[in-house]
């Protein structure tokens, strides 16, 4: 153990004296919150302090920036031509330390430290790095705010366009299905009811008209029967020829009369009877005359006299004809009315069909419209949200540009270090001492563990249960004595060498040692 202490402590001492001194300069930078309260303008720079600092650190400690610093301050002159640039950069990064300060949730400051052999250079490099951090922070914040505002602007435009498109689509739909829209349902039902009532009314009217027509038909039939005219001769149109009708009525009456006479004669006589025959001829002539449609045809009276003038109307026929004419006219009017009513009914039925269709389609339209409106409303909500964000982003951008956002400010400028930071001599010596002690102890334990021999008679008895007859000491022979002396001489020699080495070292490095110890 003594050996390990002597050796390790000596080497530690040599290192402490010989190692190159490094000086550390540092600066503290405060992270000031934005000047405008957050309740008024919420910043769009949402990175946490740690994230931002990490980003800026990567930018500041990037290759081109570091190379520039190395050249500006002439760092590592002895290495610049000998090692690759990557090695220089690694060395520089190793000597730089950036650390956040503050409570875990509220980091509000950070320090920049740099180590160098020359204290003045250390201070200048730290100052330069601090400036870079402050500038880059500002650029980062403005960049992010501008980027956010621009992005939101494009988003708002896009959403608005889509919103307008959906609006037009809804309008087209409403126009296309006007009448079937849910809000028109009540109106449609009202109309339907009204048309239904109208239909009922028309149907009633038609029934009444039909009844009237039937009555008129009955009356006309009755009059026809009285007139003796054939059905087809009873004209009911406008070209009714009263004279002809009258003549025909007379002829018809005459014919009827003659036929009655004939039938009576036929009871007694056959048709070959001259009287019968004559009667039959008269009937024939009357029928011929009846069938003659000319208004100028002469009418043969019962006694064979010809009735002249087409304007003549037999007195007995005039009443019938007038009544019949009136009836026929009235019947025409009724028929016309019925026709009109039927037409009206058709119209109403068509309207009912239209409104029924509307009512039937209304639920479907309601669903379709609901879907369109839902999409539209959702998009509208999105649009309103985006718009609000855009307004905020514009204000945030302005705030950053005016440097009213979060800022870095130097709290504690880089200082000139008066005493070296490394090597930490006291720590190294203490550590060396402890390591040497530990090594010694562990070495002893290790040797103890590796030694599988039996040390004492008690141990022997315990393990093997064999009696230990005697315990005999080592006999020191002449040879043994010589070996012991040799060992002691070697040990003494080693110690002397050690002392000489220490003295030589102290002598060679006396100036530095005096400086270190401030003697």
């Amino acid at each position, binding site marked *: 153990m003594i050996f390990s202490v002597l050796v390790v402590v000596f080497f530690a001492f040599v290192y402490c004296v010989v190692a190159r001194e490094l000086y550390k300069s540092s600066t503290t930078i405060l992270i000031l919150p934005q000047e405008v309260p957050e309740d008024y303008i919420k910043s769009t720079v949402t990175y946490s302090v740690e994230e931002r600092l990490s980003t800026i650190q990567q930018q500041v400690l990037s290759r081109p920036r570091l190379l520039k610093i190395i050249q500006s301050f002439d760092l590592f002159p002895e290495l610049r031509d000998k090692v690759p640039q990557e090695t220089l950069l690694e060395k520089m990064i190793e000597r730089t330390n950036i650390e956040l300060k503050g409570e875990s949730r509220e980091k509000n400051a950070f320090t920049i430290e740099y180590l160098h052999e020359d204290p003045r250079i250390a201070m200048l490099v730290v100052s330069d790095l601090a400036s870079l951090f402050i500038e880059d922070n500002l650029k980062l914040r403005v960049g992010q705010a501008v980027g956010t505002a621009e992005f939101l602007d494009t988003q708002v435009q896009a959403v608005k366009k889509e919103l307008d498109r959906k609006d037009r689509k809804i309008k087209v739909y409403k126009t296309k299905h006007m009448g079937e829209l849910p809000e028109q349902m009540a109106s449609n039902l009202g109309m339907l009811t009204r048309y239904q009532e109208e239909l009922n009314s028309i149907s009633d009217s038609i029934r009444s008209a039909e009844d009237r027509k039937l009555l008129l038909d009955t009356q006309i039939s009755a009059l026809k029967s009285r007139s003796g005219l054939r059905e087809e001769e009873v004209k009911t149109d406008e070209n009714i020829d009263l004279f002809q009708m009258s003549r025909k009525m007379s002829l018809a009456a005459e014919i009827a009369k003659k036929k009655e006479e004939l039938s009576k004669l036929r009871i007694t006589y056959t048709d070959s009877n001259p009287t019968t025959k004559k009667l039959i001829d008269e009937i024939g002539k009357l029928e011929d005359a009846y069938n003659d449609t000319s208004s100028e045809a002469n009418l043969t009276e019962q006694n064979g006299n010809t009735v002249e003038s087409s304007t003549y109307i037999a007195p007995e026929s005039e009443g019938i004809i007038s009544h019949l004419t009136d009836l026929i006219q009235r019947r025409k009017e009724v028929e016309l009315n019925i026709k009109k009513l039927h037409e009206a009914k058709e119209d109403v039925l068509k309207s009912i069909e239209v409104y029924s269709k509307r009512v039937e389609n209304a639920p479907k339209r309601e669903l379709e419209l609901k879907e369109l409106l839902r999409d539209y409303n959702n998009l509208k909500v999105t649009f309103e949200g985006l718009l609000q964000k855009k307004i905020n982003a514009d204000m945030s951008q302005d705030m950053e540009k005016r440097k009213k956002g979060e800022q870095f400010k130097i709290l504690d400028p880089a200082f000139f270090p008066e005493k070296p930071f490394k090597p930490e001599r006291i720590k190294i010596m203490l550590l060396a001492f402890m390591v040497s002690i530990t090594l010694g102890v562990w070495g002893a334990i290790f040797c103890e563990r590796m*030694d*599988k*021999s*039996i*040390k*004492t*008679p008690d141990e*022997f008895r315990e*393990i*093997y*249960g*064999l*009696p*230990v*007859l*005697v*315990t*005999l*000491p*080592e*006999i*020191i*022979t*002449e*040879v043994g*004595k010589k070996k012991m002396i040799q060992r002691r001489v070697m040990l003494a020699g080693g110690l002397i060498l050690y002392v000489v080495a220490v003295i030589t070292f102290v002598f060679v490095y006396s100036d530095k040692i005096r400086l270190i110890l401030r003697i």
Partner: protein
Amino acid sequence: MDSYLKSILWKNQPIDSFFLKQIKTLRTKIVHRVDSSEQKIIGVTSAVDGEGKTTISLNIASYISANGDRNVLLVDCDLIKTDMTDMLGFNGNSGLSDYLQKDGEGKDLLFQKSTLKNLFFVSAGDPVPNSSELLTKNLFGDLVDIIRGKYDIVILDLPPVVSTPDPASIKNLVDGYILVYHAGETPRDLLEYAIDEIGVDRVIGVVFNRVKKQAIQKYKSKYYYYYDKKEQDTPIK
């Protein structure tokens, strides 16, 4: 006398030395055992070479012979290394190996009287490589029988168990073994192998040998508290 022999022999130790006291104790124990059980053929062996079995064999044989009226025979059975034979100056003389190789020829010359009183010696003879073969011959068994009848105590200086099977191969001929152990040196596994080979029930006891000075002091303070506490081994002059 060889200077090495001088330095290790009990005679040349200080009268009040711990070594001498322990040799006395050992002698007492062995003699007591021989007297009580008639077990007079004692093999002295160890696990490995250098544990001090030859020194112990010599010291105990010579001490017993010098301090009593018993005839003690010391036999160098290490036919490979023959340290005892060389130390006592009998190298070159005909010995056990010759006797066994020549089928019993030269028996009369086998038993040598040593310079020490009542101590007789059988040298190993010339070193041979086939010691196991020779020692397992009936001839050797017959020789042991003769020795048993002729001497009071027989100490056989045997080779180490780990190096050769010789000590185990004559198990049936010896009455017991004294195992010599170099304290703090010989690893346990070798020791256990040696005990297994010769048989734990055949071991009379162990001599805990070459113990360091500090350990001896502890031992003495534990077991010999009535001795003078300043007592210590004096260097060999």
